[in-house]
């Protein structure tokens, strides 16, 4: 289910003094099964961009296609599109409303007009996937911890069994443990055959998980590339207010010290391997 954007522009409140162009001529294709990281400074258009991918926003100009279907065409079943392209907003736990965790997670599947058995099955599977055991079913979503509530919200989208999952900063505001829980969950999505778009401010997370990284800046596509291509352009990224993974900074500093290190390492593991290799070659190992 590839998602294609062609010359997409979007303006908020056009024709008023509050007019604001959030997207400016975006063209890109997210192929099936890839894991994309979307990064960019605040206000660069990331959130506006992802809302175009399931038809929540209609482009002011240009065209969005999901699985070859133009979302602007009259009569397109947007509900079906939103079921296939799951979108998890920032702080999704703020949207919980059900009396019980079960009711809340069942909201999406019920809107799909599924049979009760199927709803039941999907809720159970989604809860299992996010690591919530049976005891949570009848609890109120308002009695949960931040991390638990967020997993309920994620389960609410997963229960619709989307083929593409878009996550807007899923770890914002969580403690390290909650973060790790969500991230290890996100890592499992590609193996389930899902296409993933992860909007994040954490370069380390993006470097570790993404196949491709999209850098947004002032409503435009600034760069697209693999993490190693991208994070080799440290000065460029820093000039628009972004950073690079801590591992890249470490390697740069070691290079400044005269170490001979190969380019392209961006994750912790790759960096460790590169440093060990250099140590081995240089005979510095004790």
């Amino acid at each position, binding site marked *: 289910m590839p998602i294609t954007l062609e010359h997409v522009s979007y303006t908020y409140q056009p024709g008023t003094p509050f007019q604001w162009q959030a997207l400016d001529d975006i063209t890109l294709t997210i192929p099936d099964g890839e894991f994309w990281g979307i990064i960019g400074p605040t206000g660069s258009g990331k959130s506006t961009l992802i809302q175009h991918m399931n038809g929540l926003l209609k482009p002011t100009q240009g065209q969005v296609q999901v699985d070859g279907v133009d979302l602007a065409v009259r009569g397109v079943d947007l509900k079906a599109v939103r079921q296939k392209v799951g979108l998890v907003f920032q702080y999704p736990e703020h*949207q919980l409303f059900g009396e019980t965790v079960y009711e809340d997670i069942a909201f999406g599947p019920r809107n799909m007009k599924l049979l009760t058995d199927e709803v039941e099955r999907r809720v159970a599977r989604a809860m299992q996937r996010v690591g919530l055991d049976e005891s949570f079913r009848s609890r109120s979503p308002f009695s949960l911890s931040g991390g638990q509530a967020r997993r309920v919200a994620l389960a609410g*989208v997963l229960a619709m069994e989307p083929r593409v999952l878009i996550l807007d900063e899923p770890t914002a505001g969580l403690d390290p443990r909650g973060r790790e829980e969500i991230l290890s969950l996100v890592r499992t999505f590609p193996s389930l055959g899902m296409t993933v778009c992860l909007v994040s401010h954490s370069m380390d997370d993006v470097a570790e998980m993404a196949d491709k990284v999209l850098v947004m800046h002032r409503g435009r596509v600034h760069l697209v590339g693999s993490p190693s291509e991208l994070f080799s352009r440290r000065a460029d990224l820093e000039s628009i207010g972004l950073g690079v993974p801590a591992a890249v900074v470490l390697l740069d500093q070691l290079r400044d010290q005269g170490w001979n290190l190969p380019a392209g390492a961006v994750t912790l593991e790759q960096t460790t391997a590169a440093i060990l290799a250099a140590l081995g070659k240089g005979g510095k190992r004790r």
Partner: protein
Amino acid sequence: MNMSAVTIGQYFPGDSLLHRLDPRTKILGVIFMSVVIFLPKAWPGYLIVVLFSLMAVLLSQVPIKFILRGLRPILIFLAITVVFNAFLTPGEALWHIGRFTITREGIVLSAIAAIRLVLLVVTASLLTLTTSPIHLTDGMERLLRPLSPLGVPAHELALMMTIALRFIPTLAEEADRIMRAQAARGADFQSGNLMNRARGLIPVMVPLFVAAFRRADELATAMEARGYRGGQGRTKMKQLVFTARDFAALTVLVALTATVTYLRVRHLG
């Protein structure tokens, strides 16, 4: 679903004569106008009131589009008033539509009702369009202050109003965000009968209330943390001062009221 369609409480930034008037002048102006609008008995009086309001609109330099947008919520009310007045007023019959009759008197009454309603909303919108919420409540606080010995909590009322106004756009935005999040889960707010649509709002209202309480709580804590303890002994960073402009505006308003009253008493307008 766009909540920004609500003009009341939406300030249109600008630097026109109306923007620069003291908020007290403008509040008094709206009070004057809401009386003056109901004074005329015949067309000369209405002509003066309509022309005056039109002049105020032009002076505000707010695009007509924004002012008309404020009329949208009362359109249905306006239509009902006009239709009922036109059909149900006894008098000289003009047209027959089925069992109903439109009378000359009915049309006149309809027109008067429509003019009054529209002018009321337009003047009230002009106040909120040309006065930032902060100035507005500041003005109200000052106007209410003489009543505080009588037990009117002027400062507290003003504060509540400031906070309420301040949170209208925030909550509207929040509602918008929640609606989009639920739409992403297949919620449908547009189709179905009234009952279904009302039920469809539960997934929006519950999180919205939760968010409102959370915000209220956080705001109270933040205010206490900064030592807020009510209006006593509190000084203003920006003092409101009447200028020549304000005296001129008030004089014009008094003159308008006097003229319209004179016309009415003399049965001229």
